[in-house]
C-alpha cells in the first residue's frame, strides 16, 4: 500500500529528524546519544571498511554453520518424535524442561570446552537453535491433518512412506517457522558469545573494542549495522517462505 509505505518512510525520517534536533541542540546529553547524522555517517564508513566485512563474515559464518547443524539434528529427530503419540508427549516434556535454561548461560562452559574461536560460537548456536526447530517440527508433524494421513492409508502407504510423503511436507511450514525463529536466535548467540568471550574475529569483538575505546559513535554504528542485518535476514527468510510455500492458501 503506497500510503503505508510513505507514512512509514516519513516516520523514519521524522524520528531521525527529532533525534538529530535533540542531540545537536544538546537537549539530550551527547554522552548518551550522539547526533543521528554522525551515527549514520559512521555506519556508512563501516561498510567501506574491509576489517568490518571480515568481522561480519566471521559472525555470520558461525551463526550459519551452527544453524545448519541444528537443522540437520532437529528436523529428523523431531520427525521421529512427532510421529509417535507417546514419544511426542515425552519429548514435549523434556523440551519444556530444558527450554528455560538460557543458552547464553552456557557461554562460560562453551569457552572452557572450545576456547574462544568459531567452534565455541557454533556450539552455542547449535544448542540454542535446536529447541525452536525441534519443538516446531514435533508439533508440526504431530498435528498433520488426519484426513490427509487417512488418504495415504487408503492408497496403501505404510507408516514410513506416510511420514515421508504426507507428514513431512504437511509439517514443512511449521518447520520453517522454527527455522525462522532459530535464525534470529543464531545471530543473538553468535554476537553474544563474541561479546562475552572475545576472540579473534567477529562483530561482537569489534563492538567490544569500540567499547574499550569509549567510542560511543562507533558503538551506535555497530548497533545500527546489526539492526540492518536483522532486517535483511527477516526479509530474506520471508521471501524464501513465500516462494517455498506458494501452495498455501492464505
Amino acid at each position, binding site marked *: 500500500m503506497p500510503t503505508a509505505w510513505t507514512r512509514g518512510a516519513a516516520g523514519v525520517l521524522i524520528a531521525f529528524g527529532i533525534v538529530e534536533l535533540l542531540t545537536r541542540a544538546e537537549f539530550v546529553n551527547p554522552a548518551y546519544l550522539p547526533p543521528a547524522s554522525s551515527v549514520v555517517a559512521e555506519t556508512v564508513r563501516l561498510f567501506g571498511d574491509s576489517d568490518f566485512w571480515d568481522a561480519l563474515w566471521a559472525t555470520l559464518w558461525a551463526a550459519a554453520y551452527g544453524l545448519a547443524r541444528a537443522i540437520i539434528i532437529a528436523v529428523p529427530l523431531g520427525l521421529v518424535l512427532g510421529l509417535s503419540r507417546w514419544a511426542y508427549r515425552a519429548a514435549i516434556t523434556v523440551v519444556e524442561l530444558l527450554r*528455560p535454561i538460557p543458552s547464553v548461560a552456557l557461554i562460560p562452559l562453551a569457552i572452557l570446552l572450545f576456547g574462544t574461536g568459531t567452534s565455541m560460537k557454533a556450539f552455542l548456536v547449535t544448542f540454542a537453535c535446536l529447541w525452536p526447530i525441534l519443538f516446531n517440527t514435533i508439533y508440526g508433524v504431530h498435528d498433520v491433518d488426519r484426513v490427509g494421513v487417512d488418504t495415504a492409508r487408503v492408497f496403501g502407504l505404510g507408516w514410513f512412506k506416510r511420514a515421508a510423503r504426507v507428514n513431512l511436507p504437511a509439517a514443512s511450514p511449521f518447520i520453517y517457522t522454527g527455522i525462522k525463529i532459530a535464525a534470529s536466535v543464531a545471530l543473538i548467540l553468535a554476537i*553474544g558469545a563474541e561479546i562475552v568471550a572475545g576472540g579473534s574475529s567477529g562483530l561482537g569483538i569489534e563492538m567490544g573494542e569500540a567499547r574499550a575505546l569509549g*567510542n560511543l559513535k562507533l558503538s551506535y554504528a555497530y548497533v545500527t549495522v546489526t539492526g540492518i542485518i536483522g532486517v535483511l535476514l527477516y526479509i530474506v527468510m520471508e521471501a524464501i517462505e513465500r516462494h517455498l510455500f506458494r501452495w498455501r492458501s492464505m
Partner: protein
Amino acid sequence: MSDLVDTEMAVVMSDGPLRRWLSVDRIADIGLRLAVLGGVYLFWLLATRAADSIFFPVPTDVLPAVWNDWLTDSTTWQDNIVPSVIRLLYGFVLAAVLSIALGLAIGRSQVLLEMLEPTIHFLRAIPPPALLPVFLIIFGIGDMQKVMVIAFGVAPPILLNSIDGARSVDQLQLDSAAALQIGRRGRITKVIFPAAAPKVFAGLRVSMSLAVILMVISELVAATDGIGFRIMRNSRNFAYVDMWAGLVVLAILGILLNAGLTLIERRVLRWRLL
C-alpha cells in the same frame, strides 16, 4: 496443553469432586511426566559418568550443591539471586508498562501505526546483546546499565504485540460502549484492555525469556554480582560443580517466572476460561 488444564479446572470448579480431575488419562499423563523427568535425570547421571570429565560433573554432586550452596545459602541470595532478579524485574516491568501504554495508544491510530511500524521493526531486529557495549559506555558497569539493557531489549516485542492487541479491538464493542455513555477512560479500561490482553500477554511471555537471557549475558560481560556473574567466576575458578548448580538455578528461575506470568495471565484473562 493449557487449554486442557483450563477445561479440566472448569469441570472441577463447576462439579466439585477432585475425583473427576484425576481421571485415568490425567494419571497416565502425570505418570508419563514423572517417568520422563526420571529418564532425564538418569541420562544426565549416566552420561556424566561415562564422560568422566571435570567439565561435566555428576548430578549427585550438582544437585546437593544447588540446595546447599545456592538455595539455602543466605549469601547467595544476597549477592547473586536477589540482585539478578531485582534487575530483571525492574527492567521487565519498566519496559512492560511503557511499551503496553505506548503500544495500545499507537495501535488505536492507523496513521501513527503506519508511521512508526518500520522504525519499531528495525529496533526489534537488533540482536539484544548488541546493546551491551553501547550501554556499557553510557552507564558504566552498574545496575543501571543492566536494567537499561534488559528494558530496551525486551520492549520491542511487548510494543509490537500491544499494538497488535489494540488493533484487534472490535470497533463494535467500542461503539456500544460509547452509545452507553461510557467515557474515554472507561472505554480504555473496560473495552480496549480486555480485548488487547491476550496478545499483550503473548508479547510478555516472549519478552520474559528474552529478559532472562539479557539478565544473564549482561552479568557475564561486566558485573560485580548476580547469578550470571557467579557462573562466569566459577568457570574461571575451576568451580565447575557450582557453575552447573548455577545453571540449574537459572532453569528453576525461568520456570518460576513463567509460572508467575501464567498465573497473572489466568487471573487477568479469567473471563476467557469458560
